[in-house]
């Protein structure tokens, strides 16, 4: 049986205390909430913390509250299942709850948290392997080695951003509250949480903790998340696209497009939606009649540079990114409030 290497586990009394422990122990410590990402990686020697700082028991991380301005604040320790099973969140933020519902499998979503999914480790066929396999391969720069196996000339790690919920959160204009030692708090857009580097993919400080996700009022946004993967469940995204759309009257006023699993960070490619602005999303446009969606999708997917370090052929993954952009626009349009309804 695969087992974890020995490590200690602390149960801090509060988020502040957790941040202080993190600051105190530095690189030897890691946070664990649901553990669904960390535990398998520890079993395979990809992560080797000596100390785990538990967050799962902290009630302050498990609250879902409506904010004064009419949005929602979701504690980082809320499970993916709780989010995807919430009718009021699903009504307001379909892209986000759909993304949460498409993470892994039901039993895992009962434990995996929304904070954990935002911070989920980047993935790579050369990295997500046992110690013995990586030893046979000669290791890579993300762990125990010094080169990138999929792109040996690359100066940085090319592991793939694999969070399903991050692109949805970014498209919806969400932010995260980060907690630091000494009661320090700061709020940053989710997009600012990431760096385009598979090894150092989180931009937050080493002693910071994602405390909550703040979603702005849903307003008249319609949104959708489309995930490309091999099977109907379990699998990580081979490409993922979140779209949020807003209309003024019948015309598109704003459209955000965010991609995941096509590089080392989620990519906000909203400028690609330019041709949609001021246009009416008629049934013909949504059916692809005048190539408008294709034009947007081609532009949006330009940033996608898949490599041979995930499932299926990388050319196909690029092609599917375009298709997923089109699908996500169509799906987001389908859940827009009726024109003339409440703004």
């Amino acid at each position, binding site marked *: 049986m695969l087992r974890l290497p020995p490590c200690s586990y602390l149960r801090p009394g509060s988020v502040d205390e957790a941040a202080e422990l993190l600051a105190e122990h530095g690189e030897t410590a890691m946070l664990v909430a649901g553990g669904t990402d960390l535990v398998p990686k520890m079993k395979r020697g990809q992560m080797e913390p000596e100390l785990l700082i538990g967050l799962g028991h902290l009630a302050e991380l498990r609250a879902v509250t409506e904010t004064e301005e009419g949005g929602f604040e979701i504690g980082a320790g809320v499970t993916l299942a709780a989010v995807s099973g919430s009718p009021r969140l699903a009504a307001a933020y379909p892209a986000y709850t759909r993304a949460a519902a498409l993470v892994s499998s039901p039993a895992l979503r009962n434990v995996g948290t929304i904070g954990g999914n935002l911070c989920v480790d980047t993935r790579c066929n050369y990295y*997500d392997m046992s110690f*013995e*396999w990586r030893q046979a391969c000669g290791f890579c720069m993300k762990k125990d080695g010094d080169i990138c196996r999929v792109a040996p000339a690359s100066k940085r790690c090319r592991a793939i951003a694999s969070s399903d919920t991050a692109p949805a959160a970014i498209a919806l204009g969400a932010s995260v509250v980060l907690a630091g030692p000494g009661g320090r708090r700061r709020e940053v857009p989710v997009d600012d949480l990431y760096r385009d580097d598979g090894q150092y993919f989180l931009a937050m400080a080493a002693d910071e903790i994602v405390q909550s996700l703040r979603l702005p009022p849903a307003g008249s946004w319609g949104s959708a998340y489309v995930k490309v993967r091999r099977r109907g*469940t379990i699998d990580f995204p081979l490409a993922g696209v979140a779209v949020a759309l807003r209309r003024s009257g019948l015309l598109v006023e704003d459209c955000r497009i965010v991609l995941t699993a096509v590089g080392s960070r989620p990519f906000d490619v909203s400028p690609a939606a330019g041709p949609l602005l001021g246009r009416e999303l008629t049934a013909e446009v949504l059916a692809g009649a005048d190539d408008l969606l294709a034009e947007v999708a081609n532009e949006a997917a330009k940033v996608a540079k898949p490599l041979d370090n995930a499932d299926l052929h990388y050319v196909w993954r690029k*092609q599917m990114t375009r298709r997923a952009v089109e699908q996500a626009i169509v799906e987001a349009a389908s859940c827009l409030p009726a024109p003339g309804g409440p703004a």
Partner: protein
Amino acid sequence: MRRAGELHVVGRALPRVEAAAKVTGSIAYADDIELPGMLSCKLLRSHHAYARIISVDTSAARAMPGVVAVITGHDLPVKYGIMPTCEDELALEHEKVRFVGDPVAAVAAVNEETALAACRAIRVDYEPLEAVGSIEQALVPPDDEPIHDYAGPANVHRLAALEFGDVDAGFAKAAHVREDVFFFEGNTHLPMEQHSATAQVVGGKVTLWSSTQDPHYVHRALSKVLGLPMGELRVVAAPHGGGFGGKCDPFSHEIAVCKLALMTGRPVKCTLTREEVFYTHRGRHPVLMWVRTGVDDDGRILAMHFRSALDGGAYGSYGPASTLYTGALQTTTYAIPAYRFEGVRVFTNKAPCGPKRGHGTPQPRFALEVHLDKLAGELGLDPVELRRRNYVKPFTRTVNWLRITSCGLSEVTDRVLEASGYEQRLRRPGHGMGFAVSSYMCGAGLPIYWNRLPHSECVLNVGRGGVTLLSGATEIGQGSDTVLATIVAEELGLGPGDIRLVTGDTGLTPVDLGSYSSRVTFMAGNAAREAGAKMRALLVKAVAEKEGCAAGEVRVAGGRIGVMSFEEAALLAEERFGTLSTRGSYTPPEGIGGRYKGAGVGPSPAYSYSAAVVDLDADERSGEIRVNKVWLGHDIGRSINELAARGQVEGGVYMGLGEALMEAQAYRDGLLRQPSMLDYKSLTFLDMPEVETILVETVDPEGPYGAKEVGQGPLLPVIPAVVSALHDALGVWVDEVPITPDKVVRVLSARSKGKEPRYGPKGFPEVPYPALVKVAPPDAATASL
């Protein structure tokens, strides 16, 4: 033989006899065994694909607290292998490692963590050699030494070249000749249960509990490697969490725990990790195939030439048999008057391949059926009609001397076509339906090593302990126990739950070759039936004598023997005849195959027949395939337990779809690409379509109550039917499985550029085939039985 109307439990959809133990978690699989003082064993495996071992230093490992024993190849220097012609394995290698995962040392320690840490502390000095990664590479002289020194040329393991009838003359007469090339990627069994073995030594005698499908062959290998008489070794097949052929070889971990238990005097257990299960493998061979068929104007086959090249991985395993199986069963569905088969198996530096559900036949079945579809298209013939014109007839003999008895090929065809509405289907974009047929053996006609023992024996005891059947057959989830209990129950007028089973234990049960080649129902079933019938006769005789009536007047049913309860009758019979113990055995009849070299592979006392229709939608942009439904008609002879039989069909369809669409054991630079259950794709609940199972009962003259196999056959036609349905949907041929969506997009893109709408291998390599062994086909009198 009693007729169907007289059967009481045979054929009913009753629960499996061990079901309650499985739903309560009380059944103990191999890794659930705990013995006092038990040590844990881990194997150190090679991280080189191909390397010479310069030295192994175990001193640091031995010095670790908690480490009790460390062994290397020098402790187990005797070679073994499942087939006598290629005993090329060492439990632990000490000269060369031949694939990533090849075991080189074993540690017994107080717990698994310590054993693992000790393995990592063993220093192995390797001299890397140039690894061989493909069939093509294996066929040319290697840069370094060949992977094995007993075969060749180059890294060729095995060659076969057989001709039945005059193939050149057949092609010369043919109005149409077509050639195609196909590739079937390797895949693995992925049993839910990882292999596990525990050994204990008591009074100098070794007992091994293992998740094995054939304790008989493990027993034999242990005796050879450990140098102990068979009587000092006992191998018990533990309740089994899935085999599919992956637990049919004797394995390093099984041998290592026995050796370590002998050395330490303590029980030793080794349970593989999931990744190690991928290295242990023995799964489906990657096979490159070339087929040429000549037909007359009516589409009747005049000659066929089939070539296969198997990527065997690093060791022999069942390789010689696997090679011949890729050429043996083409003739059991189609009457081919002249047939030539040339096969080659090569060694490469990958985990060894072996038998997986359908052993060696799903690959050529895929090639043959798709080839016939293409041939039909070329002739302007309906693909079903082309097949029907060539179907074998019941009670005939094939050109390669296989004896066909009951054959429901036409009936399974009719039934799936009718149920699926295949011929009346409405066309819509992206939608397609495909059809294919197949057949499979009901047990191999010959054992794996030459011996004259019966293939299955059993002992049936009746006494105060109730009714106990001792059989060497192993329940691997396929329903072996339920089938045997049902047969005994039928003979004795009891219910299957009344029968106690002792199975798969070389210390307690008589010989049985094990659970492979779909042999249990037919062979162990016939043995159980014989023992049951003999017991029944004793009970009836005792009651008839007591009651003063004729034996024929004593009715056996519902727990009663005539006027008596079963228990009363059993007591009476024991008083009258002494200990009530009867025996049954089964040996396949003589003359079911030919007499040429290579004739040992293919013969079976009967063949099952399957037909499949697959209905799918394919997305022209993404290449994604959604299978909507599969209809599977199967000639089972007679179902012994309908619930279990349907379960086998559904499971076979599932595995066939997995192989058609996603399962692949593939490598990059000598390393497995997907050694985890996340990365090795298998169908989930959400990927599995509805299956409509149609059981056709042809009542085989030699099967128990007419029964034939159902464990392997239904997988076979599913794969080509998917390929055919995809062609129906999109008009492209994907001549390589699995058909992943990226391949579909590539072929569609090629077509849009005016290229051939086909994805698949371009050609077939030059193979140094030996001179053909020419075998005269059976004469007309022999051919019609």
